């Protein structure tokens, strides 16, 4: 269980990325954050693991309370929270296995981690790679894998933490539609099997409908929709995307991913 209590985030350049956000993420649910570029999805996700510090309001977890209350609490919270990124955030010249082992770093002290991690951690990392179907690629360099494979390594890295929560920031935005669906289905299945709470930001309405137990719609830094996928009708999409974009939208034929959104990358930086 993870909660946002009236979280507002104002960046140094006076841009308000998130305004008075109230949301709760119950255990084991697959929750989608839906919205256009710049709506505040990345900021909201980064509040959930303290990569972004709220200007006001707080993020509370069942285990830790206010996650920003101390460095130790925050580290413990991050250890239980895996994160998956749009651009994988892997180190290209390390092997898939070495990248996945990053997920085990926080279980060891700084000086212990200068030595090779224990065999138990390596086994865990290999299991994680096996679950995403890449055990045979464990010793390949990350930059030699395809985009879809790299994102699966990213998922494996999060799984290696044995997390309670997985945050995924546009995990399939850099993939082609077919691969995107496969990767998201994999993430969905694993989270279901392990009872992991997932918070996944997407801009594809179709995928949000298919996988979201619950959907939060964001626009202009505010949460403008909160409901199950059946409630995501034309009126709701109007509120999220504005009246223009919903005009051609009919259920079952929405492909937001085919509308290139060039601002996407700048925003997550």
């Amino acid at each position, binding site marked *: 269980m993870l909660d946002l209590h009236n979280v507002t985030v104002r960046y140094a350049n006076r841009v308000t990325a998130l305004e008075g956000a109230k949301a709760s993420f119950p255990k084991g649910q697959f929750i989608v954050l839906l919205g256009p570029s710049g709506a505040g999805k990345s900021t909201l996700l980064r509040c959930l693991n303290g990569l972004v510090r709220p200007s006001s309001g707080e993020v509370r977890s069942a285990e830790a309370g206010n996650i920003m209350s101390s460095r130790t609490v925050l580290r413990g*919270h991050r250890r239980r929270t*895996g994160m998956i*990124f749009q651009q994988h955030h892997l180190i290209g010249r390390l092997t898939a296995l070495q990248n996945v082992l990053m997920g085990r770093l926080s279980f060891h002290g*700084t000086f212990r981690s200068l030595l090779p991690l224990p065999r138990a951690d390596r086994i865990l990392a290999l299991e994680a790679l096996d679950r995403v179907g890449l055990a045979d690629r464990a010793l390949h360099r990350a930059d030699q894998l395809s985009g879809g494979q790299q994102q699966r390594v990213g998922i494996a890295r999060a799984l290696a933490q044995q997390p309670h929560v997985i945050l995924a920031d546009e995990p399939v935005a850099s993939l082609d539609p077919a691969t995107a669906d496969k990767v998201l289905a994999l993430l969905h299945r694993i989270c279901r099997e392990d009872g992991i709470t997932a918070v996944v930001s997407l801009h594809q309405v179709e995928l949000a409908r298919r996988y979201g137990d619950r959907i939060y719609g964001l626009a202009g830094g505010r949460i403008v929709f909160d409901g199950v996928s059946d409630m995501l009708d034309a009126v709701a999409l109007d509120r999220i995307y504005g009246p223009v974009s919903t005009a051609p939208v009919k259920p079952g034929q929405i492909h937001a991913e085919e509308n290139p959104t060039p601002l996407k990358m700048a925003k997550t930086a």
Partner: protein
Amino acid sequence: MSQSQTYATILAEERRGGFRHAALAALVVLVCIAALWITGFFDSRRFVEGIPALAQLASEMVPPDFTRWQAWLKPLLDTLAMSIAGTVLAVILSLPLAILAAPNTSPNMAVCQLARTLLALLRSIPEIILGVIFVAAVGFGALPGVLALALHSVGMVAKFYAEAIEHVDPKPLEAARAAGATPLQVITHSVLPQVFPQLADITLYRWEYHFRASAVLGIVGAGGIGFELMAALRLIAYDQVSAILLSILACVVVVDWLGSRLRKALK
């Protein structure tokens, strides 16, 4: 204003620009000539007298006299050891300083500035001066040479390291932070793996440089083949001088070759 007048104004403007460039070029040429004149380059008498002296020297240098080669093996090995030891020391000192001097890994801007100033200071002391100082401090031999090489190199190596670290991809750093890594773990597991090939490159280049530099350091009594070179010069045994220079050249070629092999292997 008619069109032809407009054209005339533009062309006049262009001509003025041309004059400015010509004036600037003339000034640069003048400064260059002045520098040559001040340093005595235009004193033709010295050249006329110098050329036979040079020819004399050159003729005394050939054929190179390698008869004492056994006496040079140990000093050459010393020089090689000095270059490696100096590099090791420089790396050990440079890594933490570079982390402090790179804005993205430095704890704060004040520390970053301080580290950068320290590096500039180390760079600005020539290693031959450091050599003289360390010879006075710890006596003759390879040790003062190593210390001089290392300390001077830190200023250069750490600066290059810091630049490599500064341009690291920030995305894997965010991933490590998100997974709960400590700030030091972010550096050891996300920054360093990314820049390792560049750091290796800088280090190996520096090793090659150290080999050449340690030959020079021998001149101030800091051991190695440079010491032999100086001794041969004092004895006016130019055929030995040329033989030593050729031996150094051979070693430099070998070290360069080894360095480039290692660089490829560490990519």
